[in-house]
């Protein structure tokens, strides 16, 4: 019966197509897992526990609620994936310590009361992220 369009065939197409493309996606994911060790700086994570501690500080203070990290997050405050390269460790620590600026009308960053050790951990995290191979993104140092 040329030209009919049966619901059962449409359903088969839906299931078959979905399973098929899921499998292709899983294969691409498998390949991804094999290649990222060359790009994700995982050796640093093992060598320096401060990075993981810094990531936790990054998360529990919800930095992503204002900033982006490798372009993901909120777009209210600067990109921090490359802030280590843009500003350097001392500037980052000094900046965090002096917040908020309390300049009237300007966007404000809260004071988080980090210890010196915590600041170092955050910097270690940001240094690690800045060294991930992001295919040359962002286009320039301003992020």
């Amino acid at each position, binding site marked *: 019966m040329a030209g009919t369009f049966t619901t059962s065939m449409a359903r088969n197409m*839906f299931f078959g197509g979905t399973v098929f*493309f899921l499998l292709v996606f899983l294969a691409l994911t498998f390949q991804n897992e094999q290649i990222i060790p060359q790009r994700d700086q995982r050796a640093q994570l093992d060598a320096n526990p401060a990075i*993981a501690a810094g990531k936790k500080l990054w998360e529990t203070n919800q930095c992503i609620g204002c900033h982006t990290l490798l372009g993901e997050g909120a777009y209210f405050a*600067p990109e921090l994936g490359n802030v280590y390269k843009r500003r350097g460790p001392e500037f980052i620590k000094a900046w965090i310590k002096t917040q908020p600026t309390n300049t009237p009308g300007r966007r404000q960053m809260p004071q988080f009361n980090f210890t010196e050790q915590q600041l170092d951990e955050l910097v270690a995290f940001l240094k690690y992220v800045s060294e991930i191979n992001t295919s040359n993104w962002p286009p320039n140092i301003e992020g």
Partner: protein
Amino acid sequence: MQYKSQAVARLYFIAAIGLFVAQILFGLIMGLQYVVGDFLFPAIPFNVARMVHTNALIVWLLMGFMGAAYYMVPEESETELFSPKLAVLMFWVFLAAAALTVLGYLLVPYAGLAKMTGNDLLPTMGREFLEQPLPTKVGIVVVALVFLFNITMTVLKGKKTAISLVLLLGLWGLALFFLFSFYNPDNVVKDKFYWWWVVHLWVEGVWELILGAILAFVLIKVTGVDREVIEKWLYVIVTLTLITGIIGTGHHYYWIGTPEYWQWWGSIFSALEPIPFFAMTLFAFNMVNRRRREHPNKAATLWALGTGVMSFLGAGVWGFLHTLAPVNFYTHGTQITAAHGHMAFYGAYVMVVLTMISYAMPILRGRAANPGKAQVAEMWAFWLMTVSIVFITLFLTAAGILQIWLQRVAATPMSFMDAQDQVALFYWMREWAGVVFLTGLVVYITSFFVKGETAKA
């Protein structure tokens, strides 16, 4: 209302609209903070307002989906819900969890909230959209599983239609992919990679199944077109959605440390992602044009058509604008993403939930459709909200283009904050468009209280 147990949907719809209001209010706070930086600081810093804005959105859409499922499934399966009591219980659990979480965000500093709620046991907090404390995340899983159990049992004991099958698959997929929110490795690349399995595979994957099922259900009801025709369209649309959307996940894997082949796979398949949305637009208009009855609920039909058009514009067109890797290199992480996010979420998910509410709420209140005046008010709300979201999107797009130019393309690039100052005018215009949106929302809520002559459902 054909089945008594459908009544539980009403609770979910009311709560959804309540959270919708909260979402918009916090959106307006954030919008103002973009231009008056110290507004409400330090009481409500931007990150807190944003968490409430996005989390309220997610929760109210989930409430809407659950309400829709509780309404649709008995009618599709031609049987009462497996357990209406469980549905009501889960509603209160979910609402309480949502309320406690929002209060936690607003009243406790986030780091303190993390400590209080056992984030040290299994660190999952502090990632975009997945900010919920561990107990809330576990709660979401429990509520979702009980909900799925209830719905699945109902389908199993009754008639199995294509619509309930697609709906169930979407809902199960939603629960399944949420499990990746518990995976948070120290490796930032892997963290981000699997984070998208929640976020992308939700909004550009399984949620679209739910969207398609809801739209198909309402179209059957308001147009009277043969179920067979509508179900075939539904299958075609959801097939196209998944064959483009699953690998389309790759468009998030361009610049986060993942290999470069994703630039090709992501670009090619996400470039095809507008097709299912276009099919959805054709679907909605085609069915309405071929309608076999004049349903008294004109507003619901309007919302259904609106979903078709706006999801195509927001998700399809605005998504395509910045999905190709060479373009995304410049647009990634700018206001362009925000522009797309606003229109896509509104056009696809907000509108489809409002379509369902518009169709089902009058029936749940014992009438076939709202009185004429109430429908006129609702249609005013439709246009106010839709037009203002279009303008919000256009202003954010303009802001994004200017931002990219100043900060990323110009010969002497500006710093982020300097560029932000330059685009402030667009942020002001966006905020005013947001005020119009709130007006539309107020009109929308008012429409529920407009009285007049009605026919019995």
